[in-house]
């Protein structure tokens, strides 16, 4: 009897936590996320030269920043400023939307930190990235 009881308890304990192991993917297939992704992809063509020249860098918060205004010709400074703020608005919305789409709005900060790391990891050589508060070229 005792053995049966123990086996039962053990199987309950094992079964009850099985779903936690089966953690699949995060859902990123929502119209809002697709729209943000499309808008960022389009903007990227305009931002890319500024990344390459080092005028704009990738921050450790998963955003972009104008780090060297002198690298931008005077005539383009207004344009680069609005590109940077539009990009940051999209990125912040993207992190919020991903957390929301997965039923955990409180994950937005964690999503943001994960992206911050991956943007920097995937950035090509020569782009400026922020690490530990300081800027350095990759």
């Amino acid at each position, binding site marked *: 009897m005792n053995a049966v*009881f123990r086996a*039962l*308890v053990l199987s*309950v*304990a094992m079964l*009850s*936590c099985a*779903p*936690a192991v089966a*953690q*699949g*993917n*995060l859902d*990123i297939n929502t119209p809002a*996320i697709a729209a943000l*992704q499309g808008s*960022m*992809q389009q903007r*990227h063509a305009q931002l890319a030269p500024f990344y390459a020249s080092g005028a704009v860098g990738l921050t450790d918060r998963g955003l972009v920043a104008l780090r060297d205004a002198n690298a931008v010709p005077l005539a383009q400074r207004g344009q680069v400023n609005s590109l940077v703020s539009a990009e940051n608005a999209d990125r912040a919305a*993207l992190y919020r939307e*991903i957390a929301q789409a997965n039923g*955990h709005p409180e*994950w937005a900060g*964690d*999503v943001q930190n*994960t*992206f911050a*790391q*991956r*943007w920097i990891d*995937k950035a090509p050589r020569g782009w400026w990235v922020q690490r530990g508060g300081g800027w350095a070229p990759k």
Partner: protein
Amino acid sequence: MNKMQNWALASLLVLGLSGCVTINIYFPAAAAEKAADRIIDEVWQLKPDAAKTPEGEAQ
């Protein structure tokens, strides 16, 4: 004795189930990384399979 066992079983079940709820609200870091990679590859137009096609070259 049987009553006690029933109680023990019931409380274990409750504990086990509530444990699951707790575990499921942890941030799934690996899944988030995969999601980030997919989005970044799209936004920056990085083609992950373009880099790993050495098959044609090898022959």
